[in-house]
């Protein structure tokens, strides 16, 4: 997070705000609600309180304007610059302006007013932009379905105003760091020749053309997928990737989530009802066999016959000795299985059924 240079802050913690005018894009009640909820995000984690007033000069004046609106920072028409806000202080200080040339929405479509307002009010309270892509104070517009303060945002606002008076200190989600030696994964899959590592709300992606690990929200590609997935695998001859959470799964083709999903794992794969989630999965392109790992057992599914092979489940130790009896994620590359459990990664040769190397989970990220 970053505090605004000079550390401007409000000396009072009880502040007022006023909505000077309303965008025609939304019912007034939706605008009121979006702004109210945006303030609540910040008051929930700090000593600040916000009261809405209906006339006169409030600390934070909110308005919808377009083009040059005489504050020395003209807007630029649709797209680009969506809104801005001024640091705490008298007069224009704290005020937030929203570009009326944008379409303001209360859903997934660009641009969600609640999401943008939550960001701009961070500026009104003294925060600058964060480099943490998972933080609300990140400069670019990313809407992944929910609007919540990341731990980075909470740390920022509490650095200015101190902790909230709530008996239990609220916390927020953290953004995974590719080179954090304690990094673990929810799921990993190949996808069209690349690898995608999944953790909480994020994917991390490596490819040989760009050494930097790309980290972004899963919703950037597949808005309807849930966070904290359990497992994922690619059926490459169908150009399909399947994502599992609980007893459901989704299928995508490139950036399209296929219709008719989520489906349940019982009717699709034949799992017994005793299985309520999958830990990890990987499919072998050459044999069409998919391995599902659940606790200390694994199943083998035939993608071509579309049925579970007989004689399963078997103990993991039976076919994959040495990798332990619980895995978080697995993928196959160049004939080897890579099993992940916590911060450990096992490179496994299925031909000799031996572990070849023990690696750190994030060894693929060139740290």
């Amino acid at each position, binding site marked *: 997070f970053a505090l*605004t*240079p000079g550390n401007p802050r409000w000396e009072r913690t009880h502040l007022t705000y006023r909505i000077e005018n309303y965008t025609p894009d939304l019912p007034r009640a939706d605008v009121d609600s979006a702004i109210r909820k945006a303030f609540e995000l910040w008051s929930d984690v700090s000593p600040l309180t916000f009261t809405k007033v209906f006339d006169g000069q409030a600390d934070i004046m909110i308005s919808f304007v377009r083009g040059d609106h005489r504050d020395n*920072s003209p*807007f630029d028409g649709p*797209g*680009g*610059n*969506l*809104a*801005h*806000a001024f640091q705490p202080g008298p007069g224009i200080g704290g005020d937030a302006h929203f*570009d009326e040339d944008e379409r303001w929405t209360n859903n997934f479509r*660009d*641009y969600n007013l609640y999401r*943008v307002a939550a*960001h*701009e009010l961070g*500026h009104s309270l003294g925060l*600058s*932009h964060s*480099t943490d*892509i998972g933080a609300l104070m990140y*400069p*670019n*517009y990313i809407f992944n379905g929910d609007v919540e303060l990341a731990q980075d945002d909470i740390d920022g606002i509490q650095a200015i105003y101190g902790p909230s008076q709530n008996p239990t200190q609220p916390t927020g989600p953290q953004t995974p760091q590719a080179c954090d030696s304690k990094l673990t994964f929810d799921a990993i899959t190949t996808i069209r020749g690349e690898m995608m590592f999944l953790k909480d709300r994020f994917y991390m992606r490596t490819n040989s*053309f*760009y*050494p*930097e690990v790309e*980290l972004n929200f899963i919703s950037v590609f597949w808005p309807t997928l849930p966070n904290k997935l359990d497992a994922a695998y690619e059926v490459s001859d169908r150009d399909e990737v399947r994502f599992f959470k609980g007893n459901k799964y989704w299928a995508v083709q490139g950036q399209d989530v296929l219709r008719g999903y989520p489906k349940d794992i019982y009717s699709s794969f034949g799992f017994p009802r005793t299985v309520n989630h999958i830990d990890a999965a990987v499919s072998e392109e050459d044999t069409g066999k998919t391995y599902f790992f659940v606790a200390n057992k694994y199943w083998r599914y035939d993608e071509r016959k579309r049925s579970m092979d007989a004689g399963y489940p078997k103990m993991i130790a039976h076919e994959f000795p040495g990798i332990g009896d619980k895995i978080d994620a697995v993928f196959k590359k160049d004939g080897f299985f890579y099993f992940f459990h916590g911060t450990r990664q096992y490179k496994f040769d299925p031909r000799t059924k031996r572990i070849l190397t023990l690696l750190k989970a994030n060894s693929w990220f060139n740290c």
Partner: protein
Amino acid sequence: FPASPEIREQDVETVQKYLENYYDLKSDGKQIEKQRNSGLVVEKLKQMQEFFGLKVTGKPDAETLKMMKQPRCGVPDLAR
């Protein structure tokens, strides 16, 4: 992969405007082309690439241009 095409005039404008708006690049109305190769633009580009965790090249590569074209907040990343 095709070599990245020579950067287009329009992209030069995008870079210039973005750095002026968000990275405090002073533009004294100098012809963009001259500015473009100035050390100042390279310096500001590196600051922007650093901020967004991009490869710090000082050049407006495809990843950098893609980031510059994303909708965002109008408050500068680098305070004036």
